[in-house]
């Protein structure tokens, strides 16, 4: 299997699906002539032309809504936000239209659309450009949420998303775009939603993570291994649907859980996972479920403070030890 970068895996997914299905097109800021703000769509304009790789002006609510309308009548748009932060101006379109149209039309209209963008912190991009937006969207019924951590999942999950008849939001990460990994070439390689991947098998503590924090959790697991602590790392892959079974099965084995992800502590995906575990595996738990997340403040620009605010392997190590009463 060839080893390619996360960003190329995403491009392969879009390219293969656009070859497969005339109705699929890519629209967003700088996706065409500029070759993508983060080069994810590099070369796609040459391949498909301006009809199917569309450069949009800065009007996220406008082109998000435009994509939803196009999807209602049978196209299958891929809408790229330059980053998920900028989807905040399109929040109403996703909340009130993308997620609602199927039900409020009595099931007459579906919205087969994909919204994708890098998410979470990058390097010192500051207060307004570092949001972990999945926590807002995962709450909303009618949407599906994916957060690939590896190049293979980036390709397989995005292809599944493009073929899905519901609105799917794909949360990528600028810091993952250059990461390499083996990726199948089969044009029908699909990764199903709702099936978490056990990134590392272990028996002592379950660490649940997604997107780039999966790698941070694996670092932490490696450190803990030296202290004879055997951590199981679950890569969720999709946040809605959430693979509760895999999480519960793991906790039933380890009896301890730590949830790690970017995003503020209050509520969000992390709290939801805690809620499910305590409800479905109450008698299995030998310790409180720990959470490791972004500090409860806006993202500071200063590099050291930014690193302090973002979840780190050291924080996961501590949380795992707390859950083992070894802290």
């Amino acid at each position, binding site marked *: 299997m060839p080893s390619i970068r996360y960003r190329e895996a995403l491009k392969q997914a879009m390219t293969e699906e656009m070859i497969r299905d005339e109705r699929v097109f890519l629209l967003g800021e700088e996706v065409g002539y500029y070759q993508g703000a983060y080069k994810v769509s590099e070369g796609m304009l040459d391949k498909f032309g301006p009809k199917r790789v569309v450069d949009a002006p800065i009007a996220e609510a406008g082109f998000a809504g435009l994509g939803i309308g196009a999807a209602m009548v049978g196209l299958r748009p891929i809408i790229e936000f330059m980053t998920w932060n900028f989807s905040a101006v399109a929040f109403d379109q996703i909340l009130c239209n993308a997620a609602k149209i199927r039900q409020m039309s009595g099931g007459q209209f579906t919205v087969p659309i994909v919204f994708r963008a890098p998410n979470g912190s990058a390097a010192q991009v500051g207060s307004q450009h570092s949001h972990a937006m999945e926590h807002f969207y995962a709450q909303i019924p009618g949407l599906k949420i994916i957060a690939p951590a590896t190049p293979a999942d980036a390709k397989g999950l995005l292809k599944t998303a493009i073929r899905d008849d519901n609105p799917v939001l794909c949360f990528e990460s600028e810091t993952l775009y250059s990461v390499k990994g083996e990726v199948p070439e089969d044009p029908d390689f699909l990764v199903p*939603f709702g099936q978490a991947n056990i990134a590392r098998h272990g028996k002592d503590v379950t660490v649940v993570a997604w997107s780039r924090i999966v790698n941070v959790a694996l670092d932490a697991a490696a450190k803990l291994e030296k202290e004879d602590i055997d951590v199981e790392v679950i890569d969720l892959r999709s946040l809605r649907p959430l693979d509760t079974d895999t999480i519960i099965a793991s906790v039933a084995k380890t009896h301890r859980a730590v949830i790690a992800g970017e995003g503020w502590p209050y509520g969000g995906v992390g709290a939801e996972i805690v809620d499910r575990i305590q409800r479905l595996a109450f008698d299995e738990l030998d310790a409180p479920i720990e959470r490791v997340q972004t500090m409860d403040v806006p993202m500071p620009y200063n590099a050291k403070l930014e690193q302090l605010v973002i979840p780190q392997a050291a924080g996961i190590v501590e949380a795992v030890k707390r859950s083992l009463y070894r802290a």
Partner: protein
Amino acid sequence: MVATTKTSSKKPEPVGPSPEARLSRLLGFYRQMLLIRRCEEESARAYAQGKIGGFLHLYIGQEAVAVGACAALRPDDYVVGTYRDHGLAIAKGMNVKQVLAELFGKVTGCSKGLGGSMHLFDAAHNMLGGYGIVGGHIPLAAGVAFASKYRQDGRVTLCFFGEGAVSIGGFHEACSLAALWKLPIVFICENNEYSMGTPLSRTMSVEDVSLKAGAYGMAKDRLFVRDVFDVEARVAEAVARARSTSEPTLIEARTYRFRGHSMSDPGKYRTPAELEEHKKNDTLAQARSALIAGGAGEKLAELETDVEREIEEAVRFAEESPEPTPDLLESTTYAGPFAR
């Protein structure tokens, strides 16, 4: 991009070959407008009886806009509207039964009783829905037109909204994209002089909404609605432009609503005198007089009993229809397996 303009509202040349033809077309228009008027009156009654809940926004007084505009369309053309959508739904060809059943929250309604008054959808008639977030549906309509251009299917999309929607970002972004990408769409601003309780003068710095088109180099038109034929002709012009050269148009149709914003609106913001003044220009009443003057009195009588029968049947249908069952909730939320 050249911006064509028309702001007078003088009568255009008669549409159709002969006066007879014109009269029979007027009969057709009158029937639709009456059907809408009566549907709204029955809705109001049913609302008072507690058979309809939530918000109810009546179209009474504005019938000529939707009827005239939809007359300029092909059946395969698309329409998108606001929460004030009953008239548009009927004008686009939807059955009154489906509409009233939806208002009554019945499973036989166009949206299975899940959408309600503000969210009438009908795939069969390319009615792409009524929407409750002011301005939120305008980009969506641009997307429908984008799809038509993408597929080269020759269809045109009409997007309706009130003058209150013109100040919000969704209007601006949709117009910007439609003009930039030359989308086959006609934006129809139904300027009924009030945004809920707020008159034009306190929501906009310019009274002429069609001026907004200049910001996008978009073709525009402006009319004071007195005549359904005029509406048809003006919209037809814009539709032709959209179909032939794929250029968008912004049309301002000055009209007036005879009822409150919604059923809960006491309407204290306008005087009875103002209301009465406007009712003198009721396009429905005028069409009726024209029909009588034109000697269609007999046909008219038939038509009116016929409409009454249709309305009665629709009300009965709505009342007697079953309600939607809980199993619909999850199956309409996602296509395929539920995601939680």
